[in-house]
């Protein structure tokens, strides 16, 4: 296989890479996928029913496993051993990575909201940032196809800028839990919509993948295939075509260029031997995640492209965006001592609050641009772990009365979580750190990050609205409300980093065209969140996959017609 020249060499096996591999392989192209992490088998490795008490520290997160012992993250988290990154002075950026087949799709929360018509044309709407080179309608068919293959539960509610899916695409959403119904009733009174969430979880089987059985934490991965992850769907499907070869432990560090300036494959380090190796292909698709894709491009310096491959616009690494995060927690006396029933459900959100103030915003009644949605945390009477100690801190005291208080307060808390849109700004970008290399000798990234006024005003609006909702439900806010500056998440903390090689209509101000094809090198494609021109408040992964599919269709067509 060493000498084989593939039709496409794909870097990364997560959401973007998984989709590209399946689409290209199913069209009969010969595909090689290189993945920096180890092979990972969710059927054997997922601790589906394991109890927290059987894990070290009851499964509590540690620097080795920040989201808990059972979390489906291998050799990763906020740090990857031997692969550092830095934040520039005055910035604090957090970068979540994992090093395993399937990348972060093995444990993501599966919240899957479509971007809407406004989201693709933000500059047209409010004069800030840039527009995408496509409209919602251009991507809509790929959203449908992606949802159908991924499997998404949800409901069509016909809401402004929250597009419906085509009939028959969505799976039936699970019934709301008591606390979600309570929120819905409160919101109804306040004229705020609260509707079924959309998550990449099957509630009816697809092929070998079973429907959710409502019992196990999706963050550990899902060995029955109900929760979407590339390792139980796209990758096995792509392998079944016989056209995909996967090589794990392959750390790609640059795109190879031939003397005409075309991509010729990639150079990588075989981690098991430490040797530098070459993979060659007629096209190269980078899907290593927004940060890593920018890093590979910036590290691919040549006489032709001294600032890195695909970077004649100077936009590679720029326009780094994450989701605006904030949270408020409250206790609800009316939820105390309520009748117990099984509240696991599909573990995560059954309901959510989509952004609802587009008309008010258009009339100039809001002091911020763009939108945010609500997700909810600690929904109900969930499986106890160490964190339940919080309830005792709330109750106070000790002894028999504490035991009674625990029964009384368990399941009476709720967290309200803000997920908002960030507008790109000149102070938020990544670049190659001149001082640091990783364990393989590859130069690493340094991040610059800052929020602008708009995001802080958005957080303030969220805080005021949340206080109203809590109040309407007779809740007691836990902790005091800090200023937006103190409450807003740190850059990268919401793990929706996108935008580092944005698409556009103009080669001077963008890195790729609408198909993720780099302007500079026409057989080099980007197939992850790096191509986002804006970061709607909607969680990015569904859109990453829809774009990856559209881009792969185009790539295949270009190869077929010998345009490449």
């Amino acid at each position, binding site marked *: 296989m060493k000498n084989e020249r593939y039709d496409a060499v794909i870097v990364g096996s997560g959401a973007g890479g998984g989709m590209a591999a399946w689409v290209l392989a199913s069209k009969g192209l010969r595909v090689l996928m290189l993945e920096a992490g*180890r092979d990972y088998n969710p059927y*054997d*490795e997922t*601790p589906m029913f*394991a109890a*927290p008490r059987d*894990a*070290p*520290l*009851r499964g509590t997160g*540690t*620097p*080795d*496993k920040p989201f808990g*012992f059972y979390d489906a993250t*291998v*050799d*990763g988290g906020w740090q990857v*051993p031997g692969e550092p990154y830095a934040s520039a002075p005055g910035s604090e950026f957090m970068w979540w990575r994992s090093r395993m087949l399937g990348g972060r799709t093995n444990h993501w929360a599966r919240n899957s909201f479509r971007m809407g018509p406004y989201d693709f044309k933000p500059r047209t709407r409010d004069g800030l940032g840039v527009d995408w080179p496509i409209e919602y309608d251009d991507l809509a068919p790929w959203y449908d196809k992606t949802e159908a293959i991924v499997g998404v539960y949800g409901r069509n509610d016909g809401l402004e800028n929250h597009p419906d899916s085509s009939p028959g695409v969505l799976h039936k959403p699970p*019934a*709301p*839990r*008591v606390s979600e*119904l*309570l929120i*819905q*009733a*409160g919101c*109804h*009174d306040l004229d705020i919509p609260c509707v079924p969430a959309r998550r990449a979880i099957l509630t009816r089987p697809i092929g070998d993948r079973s429907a959710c*059985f*409502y*019992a196990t934490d999706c963050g550990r991965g899902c060995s029955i295939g109900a929760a979407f992850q590339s390792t139980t769907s796209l990758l096995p499907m792509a392998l079944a075509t016989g056209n995909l070869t996967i090589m794990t432990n392959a750390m790609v560090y640059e795109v190879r260029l031939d003397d005409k300036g075309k991509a010729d494959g990639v150079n990588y380090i075989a981690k098991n031997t430490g040797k530098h190796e070459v993979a060659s292909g007629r096209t190269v698709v980078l899907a290593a995640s927004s940060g890593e894709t920018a890093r590979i491009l910036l590290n691919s310096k040549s006489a032709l492209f001294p600032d890195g491959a695909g970077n004649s616009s100077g936009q590679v690494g720029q326009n780094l965006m994450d989701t605006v995060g904030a949270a408020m927690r409250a206790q609800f006396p*009316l*939820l105390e001592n*309520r*009748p*117990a*029933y*099984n509240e*696991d*459900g*599909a573990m995560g959100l059954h309901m959510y609050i989509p952004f609802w103030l587009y008309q008010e915003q258009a009339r100039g009644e809001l002091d911020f641009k763009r939108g945010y949605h609500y997700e909810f945390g600690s929904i109900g*009477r*969930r*499986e106890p772990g*160490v964190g*339940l*100690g919080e309830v*005792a*801190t709330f109750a*106070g*005291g*000790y*002894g*028999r009365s504490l*035991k009674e208080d*625990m*029964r009384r307060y368990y399941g009476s808390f709720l967290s309200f979580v803000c997920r908002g849109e960030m507008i790109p700004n000149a102070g938020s970008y990544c670049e190659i750190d001149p001082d640091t290399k990783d364990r393989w000798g590859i130069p690493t990234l340094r991040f610059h990050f800052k929020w602008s006024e708009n995001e802080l005003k958005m957080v303030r609006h969220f805080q005021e609205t949340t206080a109203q909702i809590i109040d309407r*439900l007779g809740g007691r806010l836990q902790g005091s409300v800090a200023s937006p500056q103190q409450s807003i998440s740190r850059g990268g903390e919401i793990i929706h980093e996108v935008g580092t090689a944005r698409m556009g209509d103009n080669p001077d101000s963008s890195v790729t065209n609408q198909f993720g094809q780099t302007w500079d090198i026409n057989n080099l494609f980007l197939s992850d969140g790096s191509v986002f021109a804006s970061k709607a408040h909607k969680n990015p992964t569904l859109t990453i996959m829809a774009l990856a599919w559209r881009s792969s269709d185009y790539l295949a067509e270009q190869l077929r017609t010998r345009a490449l």
Partner: protein
Amino acid sequence: MTTERKAPTCVDRRTTIKWLAATMVAANTGCSSSTKFLGDEIPAAPNAEKALLGVAATPSNVGYGTDPDLINPVVPWPRTMTDAQLRTAATTCDMILPADDQSPAASAVGVPDFIDEWVSAPYEQQQHDRELILGGLEWLEQQSQSHFGTTFSSANGNQAAELLDSIAYPDTAAAGNDKLIEFFRRFRYLTVGAYYSTEAGIKDIGYIGNVPISGDYPGPSTEAMAHLAGVLDELGLSLPS
């Protein structure tokens, strides 16, 4: 795969004394109302060997690494607490969660051993808690011995409660007891978290789940919906139709 970490600090009686020094300053400046348990009988320069509960073993600096076997979990670090520390911890746990007619006491379901697992772990948070908890347990023992002339685990219920009350209620606790209040809060947090994740604890608190359901998720039970209807009524709310 394991990761090297800097050797954790060994917690001994000096740590306890550091806090006490702080609380005593507060006492001497007169901002404290109840100084009974602020320990004026503590020797001026105690050393580790004199720790009443003995000195815990130096913890390992090896964690479970970034790719542990999730199907067969093991705790790779040895426990480090002394028998006397464990005894004091057990007494404290059982005062926090005693047996009642619904469920056993905390020590009956292994909570002291969990505390030992926790404070012996090589990670930063656990090492922080180690200092707090081993120091706090030593403090309880010192106070008990000097005021009641007996170990904390054999003090009678009223004495032990008097001692715990002085740090369990932040609103009424003596000023300057901040570190001790933090000790108790953290110790209670861990005790409760560990307890309710055992089988007995889960049963007591009434968590129903982790069982596969075939077909649709059924949603709230009839009783739960009836209860919700009452709640909505009280709030003057209704669900959208």
